[in-house]
């Protein structure tokens, strides 16, 4: 900008509409996207022991029992959580474990121990009416 004796000169850059409009829409969409919170994976995380592995483990127990190193009646899978069955489709099943339950417990525990932080966190994605 220049001018003399009190006058002025202004230079402006105008973005074309065919660029500006998608950019504006992208910003609006980004605002929408960032409002989506964390969506954890609740599917199967860890594959369960196969029947072959379970039999091998039971064989180990049997061998230990034969040599007097394990009590009779001991089960190899005792104390292990029961694996869930997940549908692969087509009637095919696969056994495994999910950490979703443990995650939910940890989240609930955090919300219980740090409710203010949890509320602020949640309001980033689920703003209350007065804050909206």
């Amino acid at each position, binding site marked *: 900008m220049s001018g003399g004796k009190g006058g002025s000169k202004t230079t402006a850059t*105008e973005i074309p509409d065919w660029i500006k409009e998608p950019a504006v829409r992208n910003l609006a969409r980004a605002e929408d996207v960032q409002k989506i919170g964390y969506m954890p994976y609740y599917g199967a995380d860890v594959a369960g022991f196969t029947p*072959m592995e379970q039999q091998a483990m039971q064989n180990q127990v049997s061998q230990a029992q034969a040599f007097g190193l394990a009590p009779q009646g001991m089960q190899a899978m005792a104390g292990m959580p029961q694996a869930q069955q997940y549908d692969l489709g087509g009637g095919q099943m696969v056994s495994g474990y999910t950490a979703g339950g443990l995650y939910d417990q940890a989240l609930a525990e955090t919300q219980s121990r740090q409710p203010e932080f949890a509320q602020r966190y949640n309001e980033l994605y689920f703003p209350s009416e007065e804050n909206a």
Partner: protein
Amino acid sequence: MAGQAAPSVMRGMAGAPTGGPVPATRPNVPLAPTPGFNVNTASAGGLQQAMAGTQAGMGYNPQQVQAGQLANTNLQQYQDPYTKQVIDAQAQDVLRNAQLGLNQLGGQAQRAGAFGGSRHGVAMGEIGRGVAQTLGQQSAQLRSQGFQNAQQMAQQDIASRMQADLANQQAGLGGAQMRLGASAQMGDLANLGFGMGQQINQNMMQQGAQQRALQQQLMDIANQRFGQYTATPAQGLNYLNQALGVTPQANTQTTSRQPGLFDYLTLGATALGGMRR
């Protein structure tokens, strides 16, 4: 009773052939796995049996052998039970011959008119002395021969008994060594079975791990695809940002000028000059 003893022998030999031609296939040599066989229990049982067998071998005492002595042997049992009869028979023969000699001597003395005389008496005494001497010598010789024969037979029995005792001692030692060797073999088989069981179990575990790895891979892929699903909206934003970033900036630049005081004064003077003309 032999008919009753046979079954117990058969029970003790557990399927062993009881005689006759040997069958082509032996029932106690299984070529197929025994149903219910467990290598773990077999290995543990074999180890215990091997230990028991070795322990028994450690406490084995060989049969003691003691040399027999002739001095402690009752030789009466080796005497010829007919020695007395032989001596008696020989004595009767001697006496019978002596009687014949006496009869001849009496006949000669009677023909010479000297029967019952002193010379007849002396001659009879000589015959009697010879008979007694013959009887004594024959009896002593027969009894001596019988004693020597009894000693020889007793020594043969002592030697035979010693040989039998030594053979039994060797058989006992051989049996103990065989049982000790069998115990060692049982221990080796137990160890072999233990290793086999371990190897098979490791193979099973390895196969099972491979199967589990395949399933784990499916789960990992599902997890990965879920992450891609949740990240897709943000990824779409990036697409547009990237597109905008590489688009040429076709900006339109416009310049506008704002007049100042000098411009207005110049404009006024110009206007006045025009009016004067």
